[in-house]
């Protein structure tokens, strides 16, 4: 080869593209740009690439909206005008990447973190935030173990899977009368945990678990697993996982002639599921901690503003992200400080009227109270079936 410079060109090309791709990341502001404003960095972490990128972007949008709202309000903390700044990172829904991203946010000296989206990423990241004394509020990690490590900095604004799995299991056995149930989980902290809680409640309700099969959060072909389940003739199939697997699973289930009812947790309650799975998704059940969007205190207004701003409907957790940011800011205002060590005690005893619900934390950092709503796809749309509040959940066995 004579032209020695040419082997460089692909490398340059890649460099160019990756720098292009990085363009949507927020830049570090120059001090002069904001005058004497106090700049407060808030970190956000969610999968922005990969199979759950649509949900991750939705989280980022919700967080961004809260931060922009706070900036237009011109919030003062300790006598200085505050300029909040979003540092959004991509954890790829991967536990290993999540710890890298968490460290990156710590190094960037964020005052708090909204995230992560998945339980599987929130749990390993929580240790890093705890070690560095940074407050973490997850909008959507529902696994019981997330707040189970006893870290002081770990919070969430959504009910956990012990409640959700119980409600789903009770509904499947009592309302739907399922006696033979097959369970599939995606082997993530969320899917596995929710499936475990579901099985516990279903067995307590007198149902028999005829099969427990597994998949991954990256798979698209479930024919083999579903065929094996078909042989066991269940009346209901429960899938602990996200919509990205739920859609092909439902389609393949119907193509194989499986007529059993299909049920998912909060990972399935998305407009994408109805859009992509089409007619096959008719009758599918899912749950979501909290009350339906139109029954949330600020739900309708938020939904309207979100659609006007991002030109798409809310996917799933955006309202919870919005609340998570506002809870954090409320604690900062109360403590008159953006230092996590100072506003953390305020966060613990705060009562905040959010758009999703009234938010108060228990000593573990879990949401106090917390209702669960069950939904079903009817005529191509998610319809709320019933909302079960916390007292009802704890009173059933």
């Amino acid at each position: 080869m004579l032209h020695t410079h040419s082997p460089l060109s692909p490398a340059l090309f890649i460099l160019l593209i990756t720098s292009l791709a990085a363009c949507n990341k927020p830049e570090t502001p120059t001090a002069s740009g904001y005058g004497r404003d106090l700049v407060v960095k808030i970190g956000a972490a969610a999968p922005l690439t990969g199979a759950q990128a649509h949900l991750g972007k939705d989280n980022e949008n919700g967080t961004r909206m809260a931060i922009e709202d706070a900036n237009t309000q011109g919030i003062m903390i300790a006598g200085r005008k505050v300029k909040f700044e979003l540092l959004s990172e991509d954890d790829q829904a991967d536990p290993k990447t999540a710890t890298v991203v968490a460290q990156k946010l710590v190094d960037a000296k964020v005052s708090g973190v909204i995230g992560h989206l998945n339980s599987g990423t929130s749990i390993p990241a929580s240790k890093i935030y705890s070690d560095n004394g940074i407050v973490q509020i997850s909008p959507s990690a529902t696994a019981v173990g997330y707040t189970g490590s006893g870290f002081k900095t770990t919070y969430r604004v959504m009910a956990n899977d012990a409640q959700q799995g119980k409600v789903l299991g009770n509904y499947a056995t009592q309302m739907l009368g399922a006696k033979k149930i097959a369970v599939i989980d995606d082997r993530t902290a969320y899917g596995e945990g929710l499936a475990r809680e579901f099985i516990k409640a279903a067995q307590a309700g007198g149902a028999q678990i005829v099969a427990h099969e597994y998949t991954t959060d990256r798979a698209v072909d479930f024919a083999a697993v579903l065929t094996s389940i078909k042989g066991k003739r269940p009346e209901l199939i429960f899938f602990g996982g996200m919509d990205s697997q739920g859609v092909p699973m439902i389609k393949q289930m119907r193509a194989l002639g499986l007529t059993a009812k299909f049920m998912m947790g909060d990972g399935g309650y998305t407009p994408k599921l109805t859009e992509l799975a089409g007619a096959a998704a008719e009758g599918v059940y899912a749950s979501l901690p909290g009350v339906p969007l139109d029954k949330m205190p600020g739900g309708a207004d938020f939904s309207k503003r979100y659609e006007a701003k991002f030109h798409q409907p809310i996917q799933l957790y955006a309202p919870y992200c919005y609340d998570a940011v506002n809870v954090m800011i409320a604690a900062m205002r109360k403590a008159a400080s953006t230092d996590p060590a100072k506003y953390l005690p305020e966060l613990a005893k705060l009562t905040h009227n959010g758009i999703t619900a009234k938010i108060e934390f228990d000593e573990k950092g879990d949401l106090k109270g917390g209702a669960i709503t069950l939904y079903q796809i009817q005529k191509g749309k998610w319809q709320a079936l019933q909302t079960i509040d916390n007292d009802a959940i704890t009173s059933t066995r």
Partner: protein
Amino acid sequence: MDIFLQQIINGLVQGSVYSMVALGYTMVYGILGLINFAHGEIVMIGAMVALSVIQLLTGAGFPIFFILLISLMLSMIVCMILGYSMERIAYRPLRNAPRLAPLITAIGLSIVLQTLAMMFWGREYHSFPLLFTNDSVHIAGAVITEVQIIIITVALVMMGGLLILVHRTRLGRAMRAVAENPSAAALMGVNSNSVISITFVLGSALAAIAGIMISANYGIVHYLMGALLGLKAFTAAVLGGIGNLRGAMLGGLLLGLIESLGAGYIGDLSGGFLGSHYQDVFAFFVLIAVLIFRPSGLLGERVAERA
């Protein structure tokens, strides 16, 4: 019995999907000795382009067959151009470089293509419209959809067509000559550059077809769909003997069958001790076992060491 038959059908369909993609890997490897890791991404781009064309034409009231034909043509053309420029820009300058360089370039290219697709088509899952009737055929209690029958047929036709091309035509002879020794082939009057370009163009066209078939089967298109598919297809190609067209087909079908029977029966056979999450473990266990006894794959021939 119907369950067993269904698992065999599942395996054959899944295997044909792997085979279609594996043929592309094997073709390029057979001639250049290069593992084109970006091949899975070409499959994805093929599906994405087809989706865009279908979305564009669906409102205009054309007949389904016409839309399918146009989207197939356009996505093949886009993939062919992509395949050609890929070889021209990223691989040709590195042809005489150490083997590791083009391999890393291939991985880089696949990341670039993924990112470009993400920027262009977005992060969402897109629903791939039903182009064929979703009727299914029932055989002794097992179900197979029309799309799945077409997939198995297309995979076989692809392999047959390629075999005829490589072994019966003038171009095929040139390909085999370049594969054996590029410089000697050049001395004999074969334009090895254009032969290699044609190989890439052809492989990319097949990838476009594969992309459309796979999307039609799963009903979903996503910018990341090529990654796992590429990896599995590469495994299939190695299993069958990379560089061998029949091997790619055999490897794909075998991998599909192992996965499907593995996932279906491990749990029951081991009394619940091992579950369906071990299906990949079994697939790779078989791969390792084959490679220990036949390092060049099931149908692999002794590959002449290239200088």
